[in-house]
């Protein structure tokens, strides 16, 4: 099995297309960091408009930790589309190329191949996330320095001490990996249904957009299905950055407001991953390979 994974990784990283996503993420992040470095004070001023009426905020609000949070908010909505580029091509791309029949006539079962391909696609996804984490967090920390994380949510503000931030980002990135792996597995499933890659890539992107809209619109009818949609849970990495307060309204260091929400989301995402991959294996096992 490990040899199959090695082969799949080798093929993924020999293709120029693979590096588009890494380049796109780097370009996006650099542009945003540059913009915030030049004009960040105006942006921070806009965010803190309501607060500045009442309070004076002293300290480096626009520091690396906040920049990373802003970047993750923006990118973790769009990175799934980059993940789909590779994941949705894993099986259909080979079918289109005609090499699928070569692979499936080797002494490894289709299940082995499908799982190896999924694992390789997952490794690619994780590497993409690590790249994103490096640029968004560590490079931001280097450019903008560090201070407390002053998070301006829609209805309230969370101030997290410096020493209490980094582990939250580790948790958030681990969570984000589950979110992205769900997209990987969806793309993979789409890929197993087709003999060319355009359909699965477009299908995966469309599904994500469609379900994201269902997840974000506050319509009672949609509220029935929201808990079961993976897109509802994908952005709950933000829960790592909401803290509990005691009866005196003092924030409790090291706490997470809603751990149960994180656990539930992780479970839902994991179930989706298992479901999509299992479906892919079943489809491929039953399929006649005509390509």
């Amino acid at each position, binding site marked *: 099995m490990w040899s199959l994974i090695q082969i799949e990784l080798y093929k993924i990283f020999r293709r120029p297309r693979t590096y588009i996503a890494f380049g796109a993420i780097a370009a996006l992040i650099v542009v945003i960091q540059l913009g915030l470095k030049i004009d960040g004070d105006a942006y921070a001023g806009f965010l803190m408009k309501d607060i500045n009426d009442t309070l004076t905020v002293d300290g480096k609000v626009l520091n690396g930790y906040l920049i990373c949070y802003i970047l993750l908010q923006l990118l973790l909505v769009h990175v799934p589309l980059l993940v789909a580029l590779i994941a949705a091509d894993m099986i259909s791309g080979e079918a289109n*190329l005609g*090499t699928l029949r070569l692979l499936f006539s080797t002494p490894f079962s289709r299940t082995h191949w499908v799982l190896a391909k999924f694992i390789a696609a997952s490794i690619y996804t994780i590497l993409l996330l690590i790249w994103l984490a490096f640029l968004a967090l560590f490079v931001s920390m280097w450019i903008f320095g560090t201070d407390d994380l002053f998070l301006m949510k829609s209805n309230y503000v969370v101030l997290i001490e410096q020493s209490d931030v980094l582990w939250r980002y580790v948790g958030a990135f681990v969570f984000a990996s589950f979110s992205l792996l769900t997209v990987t597995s969806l793309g993979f499933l789409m890929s197993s249904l087709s003999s060319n890659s355009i359909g699965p890539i477009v299908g995966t992107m469309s599904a994500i957009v469609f379900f994201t809209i269902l997840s974000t619109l506050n319509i009672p009818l949609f509220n029935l299905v929201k808990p079961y949609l993976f897109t509802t849970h994908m952005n709950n990495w933000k829960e790592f950055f909401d803290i509990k307060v005691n009866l005196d309204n003092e924030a409790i260091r090291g706490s997470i407001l809603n751990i149960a929400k994180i656990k539930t989301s992780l479970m839902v995402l994991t179930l989706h991953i298992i479901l999509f991959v299992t479906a892919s294996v079943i489809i491929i096992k039953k399929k006649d390979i005509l390509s």
Partner: protein
Amino acid sequence: MFGVFCYYYSMAVIKVENISKHFGALKAVDDLSFEVQAGQVFGFLGQNGSGKSTTIRMLLSLIHPSSGNIELFGKSIQKNRDAILEQVGAIIERPDLYPYLSATEHLQLFAKVRKKKIEASNIQNTLEKVGLANRAKDKVQTFSLGMKQRLGIAIALVHNPSLIILDEPTNGLDPQGIADIRALIQHLAKEEGKTVFVSSHLLSEIEQVAHQILIIHQGKKMVEGVTKELLDPERRIVQIKTTNDELALANIMTGSFGKYVLPRKEGIHLKLPTIEIASLNESLVKAGVAVLGIETKNSLEDYFLQITSNA
């Protein structure tokens, strides 16, 4: 493995029993049965769309048969797939490869999926065998169709399999390339004792290498037999051209030559021993039929064309 090895020299390497494959209403393969003995070159002949590739894909478990059994090395392909395919090398239809990898990288990749370790020297030797040693490091996207075909064959051979399945191996090759592949097939069977299952629609090439042939048409077996017998020079296909085909045919049918007549849409064709040709001519002349010419053919291609056009 040892079981497979022992089996190899005792019974049929390929045993197909009554396999059929339906794609909806279309019967791609219809109740097909045959056996391939160890060390044979088996020619699987048919026009394009006759069911050859479908059959080969069923042998390699790429397609699930609608009914019937397939055994390779005496074991069911469905139940012992992995062990069986370790001993099989195949090229299926056109040589589709990874354009961004080189010839060597392809062989390294496909060597990796084999359970036995394949040395770098084996890879080099395989490339030499198919005439690609000087293009080993070039990316496949720079290859011609013929070179891709050679690489496809190399992939089938790199792990030294006992059974080699070649689907249209001479596609895209120039005459020298075709001759090289023919020589390779003969070498694999004679010198290395491999079983080679070759499919093609180019009968002129296969008849020179195959010990046994099977002709398939519209998914059905039309004929199967030892090549020598099917090409029996003593039994020629004779086409008679006369000024009065009706009279000639009537004469033949009423006489002793009637049993040799082959049903054809046009012309008068008989399959009869060579020694009888002169007698046939004499008979027709005596009946007042003016014989314009007698053509004889003994190539397998002609046999194939006749059978498939009659069907």
